[in-house]
């Protein structure tokens, strides 16, 4: 009996050794498909408690993230913005592949929390309210940037980052580049390219590039010929002094469609 147990142990070790290349290959395949999660660390252990950490270690990261998301929702109902930010951070660490979590976390921070900070009646100093609002803008952008690092193939997060840069930071050049990146990703809706053009037009020094970009979109046909795009193109034609024959209203261009 004893030698059988020993040989079983030896066979188990041999089997483990023979599995190493297979496991390495599977690991590489998972990495290539962006399926390997970030490692759990002691910082996370402090945030989610011992039971939560144990659950995360046992392969229940996703259900744990869902439960914490419910807690974050309760914090939102109670307008506990600081608690929300911390919970969102934990949720996105546990489930970094979920676009929804990154997107919603950023939205809560850059929009809801930022507005609440600006309207905070307990803070008499306007300068401090503005500072707090900017801090929430930055947090929102940070969520989206980290989300993109974890999901580089998702156009949704690029679109949201572009919107944050446009509406909250008024960084039109940055927003244009972000919308361009979104437009280049698979499955991106047609508005991504239009948004890139609109923002580029507001970026100092890139007017000519914006005009060419928007003109290309216009030439793609009816799907891109929205009133806002046509109006902007007409305005740019005047500003850039485009020759009459090359303008979109000229018969040469109208006939191309």
């Amino acid at each position, binding site marked *: 009996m004893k030698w059988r147990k020993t*040989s079983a142990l030896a*066979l*188990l070790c041999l089997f483990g050794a023979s599995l190493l290349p297979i496991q390495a290959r599977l690991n590489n395949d998972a990495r290539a*498909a962006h*399926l390997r999660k970030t490692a759990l660390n002691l910082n996370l252990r402090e945030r989610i408690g011992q039971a939560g950490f144990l659950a995360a270690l046992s392969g229940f990261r996703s259900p744990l993230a869902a439960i914490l998301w419910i807690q974050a929702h309760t914090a939102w109902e109670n307008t506990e913005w600081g608690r929300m930010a911390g919970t969102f951070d934990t949720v996105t660490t546990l489930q970094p592949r979920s676009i*929804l979590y990154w997107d*919603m976390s950023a939205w809560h921070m850059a929009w809801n929390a930022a507005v609440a900070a600006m309207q905070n009646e307990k803070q008499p100093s306007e300068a401090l309210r503005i500072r707090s609002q900017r801090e929430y803008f930055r947090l929102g952008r940070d969520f989206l940037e980290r989300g993109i690092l974890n999901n580089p193939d998702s156009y949704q997060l690029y679109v949201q980052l572009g919107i944050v840069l446009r509406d909250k930071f008024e960084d039109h050049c940055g927003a244009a580049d972000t919308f361009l990146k979104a437009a280049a990703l698979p499955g991106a809706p047609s508005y991504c390219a239009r948004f890139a053009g609109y923002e580029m037009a507001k970026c100092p020094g890139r007017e000519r590039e914006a005009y060419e970009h928007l003109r290309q979109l216009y030439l793609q046909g009816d799907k891109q010929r929205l009133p806002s795009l046509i109006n902007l193109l007409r305005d740019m034609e005047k500003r850039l002094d485009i020759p009459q024959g090359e303008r979109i209203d000229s018969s040469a261009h109208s006939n191309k469609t």
Partner: protein
Amino acid sequence: MKLLGVTIAIARNTFTELVRQKVFYFLMIFALLVIGNSAFMAKFSFQEQFQMLKDISLGAMSVFGSLIAILATANFLPKDMEDRTIYTILAKPVPRFSYLLGKLCGIFGLLAVSILLMSALFLAVLWIREGTVLNETRAQLQGATAEEIAAAVKEVTNATFNINLIPGIVVIFFKSALLASLTLFLSTFATSSIFTILMATALYFIGHLQSTAREYWLAGVDVHWWSRLLAALVSLLFPDLQAFNLTDDIIAGAAVPMTLFAGTIGLGLLYISVYFSLAALVFSDREL
């Protein structure tokens, strides 16, 4: 051929025995969890609702699958010895190998039926919720263009059913089957079912850390020799259970490549056959 018949008879008997132990009562808890969760989630956006429904349901399927695998397998050898049925069976021309294989197949059958029932319940709730959300969306979009309604409907349907859910559920079954096979190996030299359950639970946790230990060992970090030896032992002796956690990514909407899915199933089959062979090796000489 005769041996196959014997194995099938033992498997069928094991399955019936486990069903008679009212194992399927756990489905009531699962149903409460899934339906209760679904009703509670109404205040969230539909994307959040569906994500949480999938997270909690697939998580619960994994927990129940693992629990059934460990508890049912750990119990059968001591119970058969206590009831003395093992002596009646092995006194006949039934090889010990066939006895173990039959028992394991019976447990696999129970796991398959349990996971199928849980999947059916989960998919039914998801389908009902999808119908409700679609009706609400259509009502909200009254007067909108057909294109806008189609886009909204597509957004809802994309958030609910995803073909990748099926490989996710299949992988949950293989993870549970692996645990059953590992528990069987432990029970062949264990002296009590409590010992087997405790060991299997500990191995469950260690198995989830195996990949970390393996990376640490193979990275060749300059640390104490005993630390590397420990990491090497964990890597060689324990199964990599983290490889079977594809559901987290599937729920998040990630597409699992076919090669990775097939590789994971292959790895599961390898583990199952090796643990079973080792169990048969140890059990063949065990004094009963």
